[in-house]
């Protein structure tokens, strides 16, 4: 019978060391990595017949829009829901993302990314939610560009693949793209300087090393480097040269 061999990097708890375990499940067409994990957890026995604990992982939408199931598959970061077994090299190697605290097995804690969103003021300062009529008129072309940035699901692929991102020393492409998203909006632009301040700190935009892996691994095809370079321009114009206006 055809089988699929899966290697999973396990960690029982945050302070325990990591180790590999090998599993084998029957092959079926159209399996994705999530369904392999589901199969394994039903009866967690390693390939060599050892009873073990079921692997833990994060999953939700399984349509690559929630971003939660991101992991490192065969060395590359991606969503496990859209990783089809038929398209992967065997044996399949599953590891948790390496740039975030590892909670257990394939689960990591990405809350630092949400903290970054707070830092960059990634929202529009509404006067209130009562009915004030429609928002500002916008050019469809600008809307399309904002839509591209607005698709970011905070999955962390860009940070995982970034050679500059480690130990949270760099705010990273996702937050910078959100600055771009809101600074492009007529109401959002009113808080431009607060957002720029958020990306001009010691872990700010200048830590970008232009390796451009972010834009290559982004599952939503967000033009992340464009956002970074737009913000380079904004930080130079408003941040570095702003005093010349005064």
């Amino acid at each position: 019978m055809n089988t699929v061999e899966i290697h999973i990097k396990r960690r029982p708890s945050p302070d325990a060391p990591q180790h590999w375990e090998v599993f084998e499940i029957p092959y079926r067409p159209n399996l994705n990595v999530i369904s392999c994990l589901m199969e394994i957890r039903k009866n967690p026995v390693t390939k060599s017949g050892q009873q073990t604990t079921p692997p833990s992982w994060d999953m939700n939408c399984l349509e690559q829009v929630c971003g939660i199931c991101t992991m490192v598959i065969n060395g590359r970061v991606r969503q496990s829901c859209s990783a089809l077994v038929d398209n992967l090299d065997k044996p399949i190697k599953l590891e948790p993302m390496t740039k975030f605290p590892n909670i257990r097995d394939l689960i990591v804690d990405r809350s630092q990314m949400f903290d970054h969103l707070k830092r960059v003021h990634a929202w529009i300062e509404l006067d209130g939610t009562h009915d004030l009529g429609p928002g500002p008129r916008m050019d469809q072309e600008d809307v399309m560009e904002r839509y591209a940035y607005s698709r970011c699901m905070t999955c962390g692929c860009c940070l995982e693949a970034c050679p500059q991102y480690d130990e949270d020393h760099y705010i990273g492409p996702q937050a910078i793209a959100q600055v771009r998203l809101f600074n492009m909006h007529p109401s959002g632009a009113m808080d431009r300087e607060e957002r720029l301040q958020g990306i001009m700190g010691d872990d700010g935009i200048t830590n970008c090393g232009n390796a451009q892996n972010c834009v290559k691994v982004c599952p939503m095809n967000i033009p992340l480097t464009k956002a970074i370079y737009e913000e380079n321009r904004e930080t130079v114009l408003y941040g570095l040269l702003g005093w010349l206006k005064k």
Partner: protein
Amino acid sequence: MAIRLSRTFILRKLHQLTGIMPLGIFLLEHFYTNSKALTGPADFNNAVRDLQSIPYILFVEIGGIFIPLIYHAVYGLVITVEARPNNLYYPYARNWFYTIQRVTGIILFFFITFHVLNFRFGLIPGLNTMSVAHHVDQSFDIVAREFKMVPIFIVYVIGITATVWHLANGIWLFLVDWGITIGERAQRLTGYACIAFGLFLLAVGINAAIAFIHPGGLLGKFM
């Protein structure tokens, strides 16, 4: 609100800026002077003399070259230490450029140290002992003597290549880091331009080096 500039922001912007100005400009000038060797020792020595006769040359050298150079080199090493290269799993061109920029940076750190001690001060034990700046009339001969040693010449070819790479890619980096180049197409086009410029600069640099051991440079015997 007024934007507060963080230390890192200022240091990085300075690092990006010094790479182009004055260091990039200086490199062009340096290659220009070196290329004087193509037309013979006298022209080269005269060019060195002209440089040495710049008013306030000491301040120009210290403020315009040594301080920016040391800053760019040392802070560059700090940046390099932060790098976590991952080229094997993410083997994209720009990711390789990222790593090579840092590798060439390290090469340059040692090469330029060697080069300055070797020619500007003549302080490398076992090699040249005369400072070019103080023996203007013998400039060409000093260089030619060193270059005739094959290992030294190889070191210089590697050094020149690394320098040219570092500058050509550095120009591209400067363009994006200062928000001059933004979109994908612009990134691609400026990329090609930088490659072309780098190849041209490499040819000029290597040819000038050859001119010290082969009169007229690579094409010398045909001219």
